Each structure stands twice: as C-alpha cells, then as structure tokens.
C-alpha cells in the first residue's frame, strides 16, 4: 500500500428522494506518471490510481478509468441521483493492487 493515501469525499448528509446532488472526491496520491527520471537518470516506475468508482446502494453512479495524465491528488466532481436513503461507496484502485474505499450515508429529508 502506497504511504499516506487518504480519501476525502464531500456528500450532502440529506437529500430529497430523487434529488440530484453534487459529489466531490479527492484522494492524496502522487500519481507517478512513469515519464519522470530520478537523479541517476533511471525512469521512476509508474504508480498511479487507475480506476475510481462511485455506487449508491449497489447501483453505479460513475466508473472512471484513469491514466497518468490525471494530476497528483486525483479530484473528481460529478452529480448523482439519490432515489432513497442509503449509502455511497467510493473506491479507488491502485496500480500496486491496493484498494482504498470510503462510505457516506445519505438520509432522506
């Protein structure tokens, strides 16, 4: 597991049934592109988050394939429909096999 990887998400705690809400996500990650060289001239191996998914109560909101051109500390903003009370699950997949996830509950009200 890469060190210091920390997911952050911003989701409203409450929504009306069927409401569209804006979600922001960010995960701390170097996103080493594989294009850079170290001081000795050796290529620094690629090490990125290559996929991010967001689902609500098991149904997909977005599934994003990521390449090294995504900036350090990957950030995404998108809109989701909240049909009922439930839980968002956010998952990030690292090149090294690590999987990071975080969850946020939304109440109807």
């Amino acid at each position, binding site marked *: 597991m890469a060190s210091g990887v920390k997911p952050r998400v911003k989701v409203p705690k409450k929504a009306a049934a069927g409401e*569209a*809400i804006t979600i922001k996500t960010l995960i701390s990650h170097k996103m080493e*592109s594989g*294009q850079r060289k170290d001081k000795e001239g050796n290529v620094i191996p690629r090490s990125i988050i290559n996929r991010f998914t967001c*689902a*609500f109560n098991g*149904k*997909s*909101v*977005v*599934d*994003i*394939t*990521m*390449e*090294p*051109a*995504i*900036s*350090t500390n*990957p*950030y*995404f*903003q*998108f*809109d*989701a*429909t*909240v*049909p009922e009370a439930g839980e968002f699950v956010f998952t990030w997949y690292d090149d090294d096999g690590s999987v990071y996830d975080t969850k946020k509950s939304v109440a109807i009200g």
Partner: protein
Amino acid sequence: MEFSRRETIALGLGAVALSVMPFRVHAATEEVIAAFTGGADVTDGGVTLTAPEIAENGNTVPVAVNAPGAAAIMLVATGNPTPAVATFNFGELAAAQSASTRIRLAGTQDVVAIARMPDGTFIRAASTVKVTIGGCGG
C-alpha cells in the same frame, strides 16, 4: 504609421503561426481514439468541454466534460506523450453525464472529449489549452 513590405510579411507570418499551432495529432492519439470508437465516425457537437484558454501550470489543469445522455466520455490530451487521460462511464444513478477533474498537459495542445451515445454513435468537442512556461518559476 507605415509598415515596410518586409515587416508586413513578418506580421502576416506571425499571425499564420499563431492560428495554425503545430499540434501533433500523432499515431498514439489516433490509436487511443480508435480503441474507444472502434473506428466509427465521430461528429462535432453535443459535448461541452470546459478548459482554460491559458493554463497557469500544466501540472494541474481543471477540465469539465458534459454530454447529456452519453454512456461514456473519453478525455484525450492530443499532445501528451501518453494521450489517454480518463474515460468516464456513467451509471444508472448519474444525475448528469458530466464530470470535472484536474489533468496534466505536457504543453500547449488540443484537448478532446469524445462521447459514446447509447445508440452507438460518437460525438466530440475540442478545446485548445495554452500551457505557459513560468517566468522564473519554471
């Protein structure tokens, strides 16, 4: 205020150089796009790509894509050594087929967004982003 012939030509050439920037739509870009479209025709329109005209630093360029009704949107940086940037696949609970992120651009280039519609057609939008070289920041 008079320009000599030589100066006028020089100005004209400058204008041409500015309007026809040397974008390298190299083979890698074409491959990436073909892998997404399967070689299908891509028509302009129906996609909104929001990107700055001038990016203060190529490390972190904010971009947003929006293609109402799309199944997926692929973002391509045509001038990057590896042109693919990201592909957004929208699920049933996506309230809009739109997303924003921050990307790396290796230099001034065209950024392209191609959307796959549910009927299998493809639409696109492109935007030129000038990436500045810092004065002393580098």
